[in-house]
């Protein structure tokens, strides 16, 4: 085992800090979307107004759900095309000092879809296959805009709870304010903090080093700190380096690892409080926050416990020293197991997807814990959309719970009707569908190639394919393995890109639609028959509902992959 109990103190303090900051930052976040006075208005409001005029819009112009979605699809579609074109032509475009070749059309499509949807699942090796310009100009654009899009959708959906005129906001105004008031200032300060912790920040693309034992080694550099800070804050999870958050240059110390966890969780934990602020009822934030925390802490506990165990498969290796500070294969030396585990769990549960361990080398139970986080997508889930998913779960839970105890299903004075349930169920069912259908097609169609043979040979390879589609459907972006099967074929590029696009924009439309339905409803005054949602009982009920629903949807595939690995030892 070899983990000192004392080594948990910093992760506990960090979690407590993230929870303590959340109500404060959440109410700030809420005020950003309420058009209320904010610090920084003196400087930023004139700039924002000028941008609105340039775009030909105004904060007064409020959009319906349909128009909001049109604007959202135009911006995201434009970004998707721009990224695809940039990657497809990167060899001949400027800022390619390391002479990287063009991507193939399908790889460029997968990458563009991946970054546009806040997934950042990569089918390439950054150092040799993506140019400096692609990283800095194309990918970084998506780091900002995909994160902002998620938050805008969350804000628009929440407004539906309190507005009664059928409008949800102005997409362009929301985007501008998200970037100018939230993402840009926090990312800038965090980037500078990362530089102080040792992360590079320079315009030099690479340096040739001359190792002691001869030969040369290329050290890839760039504006890594500022890039990485928006990637983590925006729960994108892309890495400037392909080894992502495990790379010593991107995450050099135990402190930078803790700081990255803080960035993963900052907006994710604040979202319930932003919700409480916008609906002007802060008590309603805690049941949602409580649900997130219960699932998150239990997942973390399971993860650490199983990572600390000795691997029984290594009994055949003689003369190997004891396991100190956890299981070393696929782990980095510089942080303790509790710290590394919190980084990995927070990264996957907040849908960041930045690995600071090698997921393929984790114990099967730990892999299953990570898979479960991507199945729920909402504990706490990705930027904005994670909280939106949690609200959809809440709507369903209240509907089902209302039927069970014979209460009127209503939430915050809004009656939940068939329309809401239909859209919420669609958003939650599209997730298993976009995992299981491509998973079955790729297995049955013989698209999974492992070293030339076409079928997955082991439960590990099976898990790797399942993990790939789960990560893509949840817009997570963590990857289980680079070697378990060949994922750079046109089939996996195109199927993966479609899974990511469907897994992103169908739930977004469902979230806007639910907000839209609420915004066109009469207000129900609370009555004796109202189910009280701001209570501990409801928190526990919602937690169980979330866990049971997710488990039921996915148990069959878990049994085929990770469970077989645990039981069968293959």
């Amino acid at each position, binding site marked *: 085992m070899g983990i000192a109990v004392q080594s948990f103190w910093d992760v506990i303090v960090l979690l407590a800090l993230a929870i303590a900051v959340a109500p404060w930052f959440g109410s700030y976040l809420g005020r950003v979307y309420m058009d209320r006075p904010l610090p920084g208005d003196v400087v930023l409001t004139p700039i924002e107004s000028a941008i609105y005029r340039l775009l*030909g819009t105004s904060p007064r112009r409020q959009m319906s759900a349909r128009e909001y979605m049109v604007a959202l699809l135009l911006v995201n579609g434009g970004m998707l095309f721009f990224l695809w074109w940039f990657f497809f032509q990167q060899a001949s475009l400027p800022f390619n000092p390391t002479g990287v070749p063009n991507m193939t059309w399908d790889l460029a499509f997968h990458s563009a879809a991946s970054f546009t949807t806040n997934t950042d699942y990569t089918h390439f090796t950054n150092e040799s296959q993506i140019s400096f310009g692609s990283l800095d100009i194309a990918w970084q654009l998506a780091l900002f805009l995909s994160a902002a899009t998620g938050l805008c959708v969350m804000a628009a959906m929440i407004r539906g709870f309190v507005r009664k005129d059928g409008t949800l906001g102005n997409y362009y105004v929301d985007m501008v304010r998200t970037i100018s008031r939230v993402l840009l200032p926090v990312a800038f300060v965090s980037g500078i903090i990362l530089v102080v912790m040792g992360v590079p920040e320079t315009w030099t693309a690479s*340096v040739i*080093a001359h190792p002691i034992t001869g030969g040369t080694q290329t050290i890839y550099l760039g504006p890594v700190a500022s890039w990485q800070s928006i990637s983590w804050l925006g729960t994108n999870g892309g890495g400037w380096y392909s*080894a992502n958050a495990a790379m010593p240059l991107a995450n050099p110390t135990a402190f930078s690892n803790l700081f990255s966890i803080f960035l993963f969780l900052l907006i994710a934990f604040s979202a319930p409080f932003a919700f409480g602020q916008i609906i002007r009822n802060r008590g309603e934030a805690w049941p949602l926050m409580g649900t997130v925390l219960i699932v998150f802490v239990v997942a973390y506990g399971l993860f650490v416990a199983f990572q600390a165990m000795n691997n029984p498969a290594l009994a055949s290796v003689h003369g190997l020293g*004891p396991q100190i500070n956890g299981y070393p294969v696929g782990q980095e030396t*510089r942080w303790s197991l509790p710290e590394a585990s919190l980084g990995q769990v927070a990264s996957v549960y907040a849908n960041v997807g930045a690995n600071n361990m090698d997921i393929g080398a984790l114990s099967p139970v730990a892999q299953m814990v990570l898979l479960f986080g991507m199945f729920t997508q909402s504990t706490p889930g990705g930027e904005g959309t994670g909280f939106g998913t949690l609200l959809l779960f809440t709507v369903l839970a209240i509907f089902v719970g209302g039927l069970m105890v014979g209460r009127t299903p209503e939430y915050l004075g809004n009656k939940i009707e068939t329309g809401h349930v239909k859209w919420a169920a669609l958003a939650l069912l599209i997730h298993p569908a976009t995992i299981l259908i491509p998973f079955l097609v790729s297995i049955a169609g013989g698209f999974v190639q492992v070293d030339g043979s076409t079928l997955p040979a082991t439960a590990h390879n099976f898990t790797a394919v399942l993990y790939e589609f789960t990560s893509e459907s949840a817009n997570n972006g963590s990857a289980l393995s680079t070697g378990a099967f060949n994922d750079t074929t046109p089939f996996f590029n195109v199927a993966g890109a479609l899974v990511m696009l469907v897994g992103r924009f169908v739930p977004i439309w469902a979230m806007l639609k639910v907000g839209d339905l609420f915004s066109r409803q009469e207000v129900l005054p609370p009555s004796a028959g109202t189910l009280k949602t701001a209570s501990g009982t409801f928190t526990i009920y919602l937690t169980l509902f979330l866990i049971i629903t997710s488990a039921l949807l996915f148990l069959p595939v878990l049994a085929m992959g990770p469970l077989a690995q645990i039981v069968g030892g293959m």
Partner: protein
Amino acid sequence: MSDRNPPTETVAREWQPPAPTVARMPVVPLHRRIPSSHTMATHVRATILFLVLSILLSGFAYPAVSVAVAQVIEPWSANGSLLHYPNGTVAGSALIAQNTSAPWLFWSRPSLTDYNTTLGFDTPPGPTDPALGQLLNETLNYTRLYGNFTVNASIPFWLVSPSASDVDPDLTPEAVLVQIPRVANATNLSIPFLQNFVNEHIVNPVVPYVGVPYVDVLQLDLALLPLEGR
């Protein structure tokens, strides 16, 4: 649904409840709000302009300001924590491991990409995969053969296990200390001297239990070179 609990609904209607707890405050005050009447052409124009502005901001302005600030406040780490030989040539980065498997140097953790940063990283075999045992056995045998270990000696796990990044420059102190007999054998340096030398290079956590004690192997080896007269 109404036929399931008619009494509740009837009660609710007659009861005349208090004002709703959810305040109906519009996000933009109502008198200032008008329905959006953007045409498709307005949307397309706004999208293009918004994307151009965002590219200028995220791709140029934001990194440019960050680089300018970073180069002033922390130039060494902002430029990649580079380590130099006495003659000024770049030896490597303190944050990137190199192949140092010469008998007269301390070794880093093994790398599945052979420390070639262009290859990124590679995933080790899964936890229950028989290939994992084979890989570790091969690494152990190599380490025993060239690392001056007796056949039955226990070799620290961290010394023979591949890392997540494949360029982890750090090792646990015991995995460095265990290499001292080999280095002493290959050079004219004594074992007590090397023990003292390694102990001086152990990086202990600044705050207890935040991180673990480790040794940056590349920095250690570069400090060792002049002592060995190379």
